[in-house]
């Protein structure tokens, strides 16, 4: 009898355990088991309503404006019938006030949102406010001068549809906010001064060393008169007895790039294919009827690289740039900076003058940035840094975009900015009166 009583006691204990376990093991309601992600639905609804900035505009309108009715109609129309909502707009306060947000307007289609709801917030900015973006200046710690070749006494080539001067103007608008000093080189005389290491402006920020020089003349480069045949520095610009004697000038450019640690930029085509001076070469043309220039052919870039690497000058017409049969694509790094700097050139381009990667070993170069992805052994666009073997210091750089004409100078700007990576400091979005916070709370009705 005792054992039976013990068993009954055990049953009572287990029953108690079951009741207690059932009491604590509360199973969720079916709706919570497989819920809609209301937070995401709310966010995507707000984004849809703000597709044409209608929500942003309405958020700043008076509370009795009819635009609020349109928002309510749109909200009701785009949400499923079993979803109830409450949309509230708050004014964002700044400073040390006690209230950070002040409620401005609320619209809803139900008195309560049921037992379960979720919300998303969306910050909208007033169209009446301009948010400033202040770029970091390249060269705040040395260098920082941008020279844009705008020489009035030179002609360009392979910049079809543009003039060097119009490109220079556009580049100035695009890039001057990023540099301590941006200086237009107005003629070949001023270019000659820079080549001598002399400043050409009164700007206290001008610094010839570590400067960036953009050659807006395409495949052609301006040549100062003194470097031409029969003038004072002929030996640095003219090498007689060869097919294209002005390749010697390109060697000098390479030397100066190394000595002053410049970043030389070729915006399109075969770099340094012609030299131009409309005064000295007034009666000579590039064989295509453009007067004021002389061909230096394929040897120009070879001579430049020799000068950059401090090799002895050796005349060479060896071809080092070739055409790529397929479209070339922006590198992932350059694509990233498209968004950062708000520059959106086409990501696919045609490259007919891509440099062979053999130059990297031949001239002690390293690739600091691919603007375009390399295709085989050809590099459509990149920044090459020169560092002497065994050294660590950069002694000159070259940004060469071997694309076909006509040039898109946004690619030049993108390459340059992707290389230097100046930061952008954006103004605060929480300044008083500039922003409103929209919160959309959604709940589900029906069911349990």
């Amino acid at each position, binding site marked *: 009898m005792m054992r039976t009583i013990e*068993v009954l006691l*055990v049953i009572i204990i287990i029953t108690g355990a079951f009741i207690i376990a059932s009491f604590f093991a509360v199973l969720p309601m079916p709706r919570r088991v497989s819920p809609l992600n209301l937070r995401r639905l709310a966010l995507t609804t707000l984004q849809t309503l703000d*597709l044409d900035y209608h929500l942003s505009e*309405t958020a700043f309108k008076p509370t009795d404006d009819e635009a609020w009715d349109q928002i309510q*109609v*749109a909200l009701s*129309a785009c949400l499923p*019938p079993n*979803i109830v909502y409450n949309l509230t707009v708050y004014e964002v306060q700044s400073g040390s006030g006690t209230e950070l947000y002040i409620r401005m307007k609320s619209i809803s289609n139900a008195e309560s949102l049921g037992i379960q709801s979720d919300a998303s917030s969306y910050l909208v900015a007033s169209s009446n406010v301009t948010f400033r973006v202040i770029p970091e200046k390249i060269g705040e710690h040395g260098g920082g001068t941008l020279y844009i070749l705008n020489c009035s006494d030179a002609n360009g080539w392979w910049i079809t549809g543009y003039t060097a001067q119009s490109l220079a103007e556009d580049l100035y608008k695009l890039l001057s906010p990023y540099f301590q000093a941006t200086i237009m080189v107005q003629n070949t005389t001023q270019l000659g001064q820079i080549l001598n290491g002399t400043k050409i402006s009164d700007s206290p920020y001008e610094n010839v060393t570590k400067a960036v020089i953009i050659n807006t003349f395409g495949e052609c480069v301006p040549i100062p008169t003194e470097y031409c045949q029969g003038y004072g520095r002929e030996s640095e610009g003219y090498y007689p007895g060869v097919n294209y004697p002005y390749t010697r000038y390109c060697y000098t450019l390479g030397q100066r790039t190394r000595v002053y640690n410049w970043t030389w930029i070729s915006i399109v085509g075969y770099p340094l294919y012609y030299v131009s001076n409309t005064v000295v070469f007034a009666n000579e043309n590039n064989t295509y009827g453009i007067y004021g220039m002389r061909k230096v052919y394929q040897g120009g870039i070879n001579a430049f690289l020799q000068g950059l690497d401090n090799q002895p000058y050796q005349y060479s017409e060896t071809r080092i740039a070739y055409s790529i049969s397929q479209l070339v694509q922006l590198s992932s790094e350059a694509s990233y900076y498209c968004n950062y700097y708000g520059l959106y050139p086409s990501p696919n381009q045609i490259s007919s003058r891509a440099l062979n990667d053999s130059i990297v070993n031949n001239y002690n170069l390293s690739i600091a940035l691919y603007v375009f992805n390399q295709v085989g052994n050809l590099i459509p666009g990149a920044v090459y840094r020169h560092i002497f073997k065994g050294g660590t210091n950069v002694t000159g750089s070259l940004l060469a975009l071997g694309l076909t004409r006509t040039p898109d100078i946004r690619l030049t700007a993108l390459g340059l900015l992707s290389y230097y990576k100046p930061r952008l400091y954006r103004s605060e979005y929480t300044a008083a009166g500039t922003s409103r916070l929209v919160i959309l709370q959604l709940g589900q009705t029906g069911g349990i």
Partner: protein
Amino acid sequence: MAGSTIDHLVSVTVFLGAILVFISLFNQTLQTAILYQRHRNLATKCSDLLDNMLLNPGTPSYWGRSNVTPTGFGLQDPEFTQYRLSPFSLMRLNYTPGKPVFYPKTGKYYSNITMGFGKSLLVPFNEVINYSTAARLLGVNGTYGFSLTITPIVTVSITELQLNPLQLRVDVRGAGFPLIYANVSHCLITVKATGGQGAYPSYTVDYGSALTDSEGSVLLTFPSFDGEEESYVLIAYAHLSGLVGVGYHEHVQYTGSYVVPFVEDFDTRRVLIAHSWDVHGGDNPAEISYNATFVLLTEDFTLREMPLENSTGKVGKINYGVGKPYQNITIPTYNPGILVITYRKSAQESGVVLMPWGISSMAFPVTFGEDPFGKVWVATDIRQVIVNNIAYQAKLALWSFEGYQVIG
């Protein structure tokens, strides 16, 4: 002794019986809890998978505009962020409910989205992404099944009230409410089948706008247009507070023979123009002439014509049967638009067919994946998405291939 034995037997029997009962009770509670957890997990997986599809463009990012099979599945428009989908990636999804179309002259089957006469999108099977490929790329092959539906939020339905003069009623509805006081911009394309035998049809375009009433409807009257005599198509865009929807209605004079456009190649944007008899059969086929035009939707909701690259295929004649080749044209852009092809047999027998270039330009829906009907437990989640400025709702239904059977 006997009493003790009986006591022992009774107690053991009662104890075993009680244990069995309690095991059953606890088991039921535990199984229900496990089931709830699995369902919860499925709902979370559903939400994650939907975001995974909608918030990445796939690899390569422009796969929707090419013939390549992606190595990563995603539907986001690579030119935007957030929930904006590529109208071309959606075009390359195999439309599950559509009955495949076979075109003998290319020897290919085509995925078929048809929204009524003359409104179809036919994409070759060798260029669409099928369900198993997508499931494999998403990493759910063999573990989960899914069905993705992307439907326009705003439904613009057009009803013909009378033909002469033409009067149409446009009803604009959202998912849960009519779109009252919405702007409706419309474009009436009228086929001009003028000229003698063999002449090519032309068309005229008239624009207008109106406001829906408190029931989301608006009456459009075209006093100088006789719908009994001429073929026409009306395309209407309704817009309110960021919500944009598209609707269309057409009335053709002749359906005996017509043109059927097929997307042939995404890389080269080539579209084939076939004779309807070669595709759908029919009685009394005849040679027809056609005139193809590509139109883009502008920001002010008017249509702008873009010249077709292949001027030789822009107009032409097309016949049926063996030895009669199809025509082809090249769409000039990757911007979404509508290919409008007017056709005629004679001055009285004409019509017009439309094909969207980019799924959104005619607000075509997308249904991709398996049919969830009959599955044990299906979790769903929804997002509002934008496809080239047209508001859509993306809904994913997900179920697990693991068993959910519960004993007890």
